[in-house]
């Protein structure tokens, strides 16, 4: 049993309100690679690896949540709008104690509820079904408005991709959230600079992604999405900003942490074979069985 699993068990036994154990970014990356390898199918790896630090800070330090009580009414809500990055999300949910390794091992198995895009299942900590890009922010805004109407001290965090920001519906929501000054809503844009077919050329030259969010009236914080200190600072600043919604535009590297996957869009959606798996472990600095 890993240290993490022991800690999860401890927190379950004690019914602790807060997460007392640390999940490392390496744990998450290792888990992503493990699930991708074990499922034996192609999976979205690059966009999962790019958001590891963002999710780890969010779940470890920012979100008010109780993995042992996933439907706790006072919890903050997280929506993975870039739903194809579900591997990273499931790895985090597992490591933070929402479900065990046996459940995780059903990823992309026939009939499993853990598939290539999130399927709403509150008992597992999955708040929303996603996969159709450009919809999560809108749902998130509705949730945030609901919290506002009920005067609840809760917040909604929505993770989007930069490629996803091609969807016009994102900007319908961006405009309304700014107009209404919805400060319970925080968008995290994992700007990893790639989409399915290659580079996100849309925001590479004349228009910049952060600039659009700013033009839409959002409080924009630009950070290095792999720098823990900057990420923590951004979330704190988002929380402190009361006039409206905040967009954390995080520059990241797609495939981060595994050298041959970094900025290599072949790993947007691909299969990890046993040879590749060994290479992944080496790249992560973890020893493989055969040395």
């Amino acid at each position: 049993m890993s240290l993490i699993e022991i800690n999860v068990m401890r927190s379950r036994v004690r019914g602790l309100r807060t997460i007392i154990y640390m999940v490392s970014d390496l744990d998450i990356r290792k888990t992503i690679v493990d699930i991708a390898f074990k499922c034996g199918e192609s999976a979205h790896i690059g966009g999962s690896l790019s958001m590891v630090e963002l999710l780890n800070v969010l779940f470890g330090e920012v979100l008010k949540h109780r993995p042992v009580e996933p439907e706790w009414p006072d919890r903050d809500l997280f929506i993975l709008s870039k739903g194809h990055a579900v591997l990273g999300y499931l790895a985090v949910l597992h490591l933070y104690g929402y479900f065990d390794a046996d459940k995780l091992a059903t990823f992309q198995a026939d009939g499993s509820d853990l598939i290539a895009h999130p399927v709403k299942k509150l008992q597992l900590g999955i708040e929303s079904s996603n996969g159709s890009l450009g919809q999560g922010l809108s749902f998130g805004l509705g949730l945030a408005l609901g919290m506002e109407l009920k005067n609840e001290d809760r917040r909604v965090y929505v993770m989007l991709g930069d490629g996803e920001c091609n969807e016009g519906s994102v900007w319908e929501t961006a405009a309304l959230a700014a107009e209404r000054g919805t400060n319970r809503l925080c968008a995290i844009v994992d700007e990893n600079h790639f989409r399915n077919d290659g580079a996100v050329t849309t925001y590479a030259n004349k228009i910049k992604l952060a600039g659009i969010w700013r033009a839409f009236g959002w409080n924009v914080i630009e950070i290095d999405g792999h720098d823990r200190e900057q990420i923590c600072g951004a979330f704190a600043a988002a929380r402190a900003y009361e006039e409206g919604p905040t967009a954390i535009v995080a520059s990241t590297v797609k495939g981060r942490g595994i050298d041959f996957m970094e900025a290599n869009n072949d790993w947007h959606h691909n299969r990890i074979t046993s040879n590749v798996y060994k290479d992944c472990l080496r790249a992560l600095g973890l020893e493989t069985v055969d040395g």
Partner: protein
Amino acid sequence: MVEISKRNARTWSRMGIRAIYGQALAGYAAENPNVIAVSADLGRSSGLDRFSKEYPNQFINTGIAEQNMVGVAAGLARSGFDVFASTFAPFASMRASEQVRMNMGYMGEPVKLVALGSGFAMGLLGNSHYGLEDLAVMRAIPGLTIVSPADCAEIYKTLEACIGHRKPVYIRLTGGVNCPIVYEEDYDFQLGKAVWIKPAADITLVSAGTTVGHCRSAADALAGEGFTIGVLNMHTIKPLDKEALAHAAAVSCTLIVVEEHMRTGGLGSAVLEFFAEVGAPRCRIVTYGIPDRYGETGTYPYMLKTSGLDADGIARLIKRETANA
């Protein structure tokens, strides 16, 4: 619930379907702070003007952004509110259809999506604003209940039934001002349970929305010529009231489905799908709706007349079909 009376029914009919939607919703919002109206900038076109002024905290205008309207409505609905989101039928059902699919279908968020001015009700605004295919699209999405109220009284009944109902509903409003009056006194309304306006007979008309009133007028007009015609208000198009349909098929020789929708994918298709499963050995089934093309446009009465969907047209249809039988 307000009183359904002859007097009220006349007043409501004069005000028209959309104005009554707004008035009814405002009435329910006054007594229930959980009721929220969301509009994609069509508050004034759906009688929600007063609502937005009197209950600003219960009203959200998303701007001209129907996809966002549905997503936001879903988030609010998840938060426990009774959310009624409205815009014109093609924008609700088609511009935002994938949002409906993900939020209301896949996730089952209990949004009440209100399609204004469906069928030909938008008159001179033309085909861009008509709701001719909305049922086909919405019917294909699992988990949705689809309701089309027959008159203003039934709008009150529908909204009342939807408040506290934690499932997604598509509410299709046809008809305009001076819409046909079907109900002048209180009656029992339940989602999924059709209402017999005239008992099943040799010929039975099955319809939904304001076409029900035209069907009744046609049946009344033909009564003097010796016809006995049943009229079934299938206000809930999904799920169909199968018992009522089975009864109609057992009693009638000819069952005619009349609808203000393309013949493809609407109530007629739903009825045919049902009978394809269970059979209707002694009953001929006819479906009548809008032919498969975008035709000329005009005022609402003109459109109903030229499509044969007013009382006169339906009477002619009945004669034609019984002559064929």
